[in-house]
């Protein structure tokens, strides 16, 4: 900020005054009416609830033109929100939470996305936003009472519900970032406590991304260092059937957020910024196959 501006504001704020009564309770009540806070949920689902609230904050500032602007995959912002609602709905259905939108027919995410987008195109963007948010919040509330290991299925993939919800968190985060980029809005990162479990899921997915990427990582071990808030260290057995990690064959050091986004299909593995050590060919294979599970 300009020094004159700072001086001006500092001068005006000298001699702090206190309101006669605390406005805090009134403020928080008013805040709830203006913008819904993150839905209350189980601690392990909070990263997802937080990303839903962040996406909704972005959508709150969207005006007419913004809704029809293409964001990714040839989808408008409204269609992108419908896509998020479609996949959230499939997970909701799998754990018995409310599903909004058209009745579920084909249960793969591509068909469901197609159905929900067709349904939402006939409605206003605000209706699409409202139902996406209502379904996400209902899912959060439903998860509050479920054990994290409850089995769930999405797109034919069986996994505990806490892993599925972290995947939904990552996807919501990435698409919010896509939309923010189009709107030229700087999106702050999630807090470290929300990034860390998401990064942990990404690290645990590596054996599967290797497999789906057509590279056999069986018997090999990766030492992964993710830097930045929410980062950490992981030792990952790269074969899906490996009993556990052994001595590391290769070491990758990268930024935690960039690494999560790489698995989400953002960024080119070929020029991904990372420090590689040990078996470089293996490390490059890990990066090259990292986006293998990413879907729209």
């Amino acid at each position, binding site marked *: *900020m*300009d*020094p*004159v*501006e*700072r*001086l*001006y*504001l*500092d*001068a*005006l*704020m*000298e*001699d*702090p*005054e*206190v*309101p*006669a009564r605390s*406005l*805090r309770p*009134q*403020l*928080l009540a*008013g*805040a*709830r009416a*203006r*913008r*819904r*806070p*993150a839905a209350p949920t189980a601690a392990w689902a909070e990263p997802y*609830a*937080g*990303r*839903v*609230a*962040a996406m*909704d*904050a*972005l959508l*709150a*500032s969207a005006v007419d033109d913004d809704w029809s602007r293409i964001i990714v995959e040839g989808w408008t912002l409204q269609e992108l929100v419908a896509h998020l609602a479609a996949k959230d709905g499939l997970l909701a259905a799998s754990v018995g939470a409310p599903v909004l939108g058209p009745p579920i027919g084909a249960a793969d995410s591509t068909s469901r996305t197609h159905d929900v987008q067709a349904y939402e195109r006939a409605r206003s963007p605000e209706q699409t936003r409202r139902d996406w948010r209502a379904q996400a919040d209902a899912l959060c509330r439903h998860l509050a009472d479920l054990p994290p290991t409850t089995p769930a299925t999405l797109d034919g993939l069986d996994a505990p519900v806490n892993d599925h919800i972290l995947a939904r968190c990552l996807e919501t985060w990435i698409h919010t970032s896509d939309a*923010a980029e189009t709107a030229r*809005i*700087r*999106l*702050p*990162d*999630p*807090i470290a406590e*929300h990034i860390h479990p998401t990064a942990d899921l990404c690290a645990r997915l590596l054996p599967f991304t290797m497999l789906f990427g057509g590279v056999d990582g069986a018997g090999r071990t990766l030492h992964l260092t993710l830097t930045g808030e929410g980062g950490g260290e992981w030792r990952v057995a790269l074969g899906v059937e490996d009993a556990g990690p052994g001595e590391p064959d290769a070491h990758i050091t990268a930024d935690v957020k960039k690494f999560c986004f790489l698995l989400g299909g953002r960024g080119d593995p070929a020029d991904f910024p990372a420090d590689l050590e040990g078996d470089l060919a293996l490390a490059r294979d890990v990066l090259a196959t990292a986006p293998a599970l990413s879907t729209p």
Partner: protein
Amino acid sequence: MPVEAPYDDRLLHQRVVGGDESALGEVYDRLSSLIFGLALRVTRDRVIAEDITQEVFLVFWERPLAFDPERGTLRAWLATIAHRRAVDHVRAEERRRVSALGPRLFEREPVRLEDTVLAADEAQRVRRAVTSLPDGLREAVELAYFGGRTYRQVGEELGVPEGTAKSRIRLALRRLADALAEEEV
């Protein structure tokens, strides 16, 4: 020169964007007396100043992405909104009073405030107010704000203890605040 917000600001911002209500409460606890003081100084009405304070924090909650921590502190951003609203209020009051008095002898141009709090003439006003400070206070403020010095460095350059430098800057700010508030209404 843009000043990046401190870490705490960035964290509170991240939490508010993520829909964490308790972060809004923390922002309120930390900054409400400053914002209220600013609104009160301009409006001189405690009830109006309370309304403005409330509104300023609600704007941050409702549209948190409008704040960009890479372009300044949260304190300055909230203060800018508070100041703009307070000035708008005072001007609306003035217009109302004038029209209640019947035919106007002179008409003021309707004022459109710039997006930034300080239009060029306001910056001029601040510079004039700084110039009219007594030498000891003026030097301290100039070193701190225009020279980007810390309290300690200001003390060293003026040959006084750090605490003295600090109290001179505070005294200067108080005088400036009075001068600027006098002109405001």
